[in-house]
């Protein structure tokens, strides 16, 4: 009986660990999605004219982006060793093999955001800001973002 309880207990713990790992992967995915929302769903769409220019929405998107980017190093501290179920993109294991290099890609994004913060006044300046920020995102995605299907 005792042995069975130990087995059952460790199975539960194991399942819990798997859940936790998936949870971590989801948290990391959500953080990236939140940034995509600011940069693509708001800013990129405005640069393309899909939605009208809106100063308040721009300022909010930049502020949200800045807050999210500051969380990347911490959120990606633990390697979940799995991808979000059915995700199109995932993290390369290289993130945790070269965590210092991964982290070194973050300050340039922050610098690009700081350089344009409060200076975006119209579609033209928004376009320039979008490119300067997105290029720094791509610098990291080139190595550390993996397409899964």
């Amino acid at each position, binding site marked *: 009986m005792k042995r069975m309880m130990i087995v059952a207990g460790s199975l539960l713990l194991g399942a819990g660990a798997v859940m936790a790992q998936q949870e971590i992967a989801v948290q990391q995915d959500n953080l990236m999605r939140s940034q995509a929302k600011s940069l693509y769903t708001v800013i990129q769409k405005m640069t393309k004219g899909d939605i009208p220019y809106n100063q308040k929405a721009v300022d909010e998107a930049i502020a949200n982006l800045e807050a999210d980017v500051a969380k990347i190093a911490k959120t990606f501290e633990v*390697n979940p060793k799995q*991808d979000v179920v059915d995700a199109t*993109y995932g993290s*390369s294991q290289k993130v945790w093999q070269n965590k210092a290099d991964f982290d070194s890609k973050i300050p340039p994004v922050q610098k690009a955001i700081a350089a344009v913060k409060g200076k975006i006044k119209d579609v033209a300046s928004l376009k320039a800001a979008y490119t300067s920020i997105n290029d720094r995102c791509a610098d990291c*995605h080139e190595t550390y973002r*993996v*397409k*899964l299907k």
Partner: protein
Amino acid sequence: MLQRTSLVALLAAVAVAGVYWWLSAPVVAAAANAPAHVPDLANGEVMFNAGGCASCHAVPNQPDRLRLGGGVAIKSPFGTFYAPNISPDPNDGIGKWTDADFVNAVMHGVSPAGQHYFPAFPYTSYQHARREDVLDLFAYLKTLPAVAGKVRDHDVGFPFDIRRNIGIWKFLFMDGKPLVADGSKSPQWNRGAYLVNSFGHCAECHSPRNALGGIITGQRFAGAPNPEGEGWVPNITQKRLGEWSAKDLANFLKTGELPDGDSVGGAMTRVIKNTSQLPDQDLAAMAEYLKSLPPVDGPTPPKRKQAS
């Protein structure tokens, strides 16, 4: 009796060796009486960007994509290849090459010394290029800065390290047929077909390969596991890109932005650095051709990655 059997065996072995030697020999174009060509540098630059030369041959970890000193490591199931120096340096690069040397390298995969190149160098696609475009590219490369330094040897295991074997590989998987323009299609479509299938060499990564590394013809462009390891190279036939308009495709090649409001990642990021430099009409042509690819089912990506 035994003597006779061994004689037959010996003769058979000699015959096999002879056929091997014949099939594995490096074949190049005749250099003599090739027409003289006045190079067009602007066209050479377009071919440079369509061909993505910089992605592998530019010196890694420095910002200038025109410093072609080589050194990028290209991982494959057969070993790791190191892209060579193709800058105009006379000793370490291609500064001393003749036009014929360059054409043979790019279109036939044969070095000036008469050895096969590994097909990590996508001459299987470049063979479909026009000779004049290849010579324009050569002239353009010669205008770029010379970079000193030889790149280390490839790290490829036996038996793949025997260059002569590549001759057999070419016999099996390199069709050697020129790309014929389709008269029923628009000039723009034909230009796109040309760029995608020759210099663009899109199929090299976007198609599955067999155990010997040959492209599975029936599933050309239908996606494949990433040869560098993690992840998947997507199906780019209409099976997967049916919802993309030609305009979406052209915009993607220009900016790396996907129609669903995301941006490119992985190895394609490096490809976009090249295609973003192409003239808009060439991007539109490639888009029109890609949009015309019939839907084909490719291999299925693994459901979920479990890291080791």
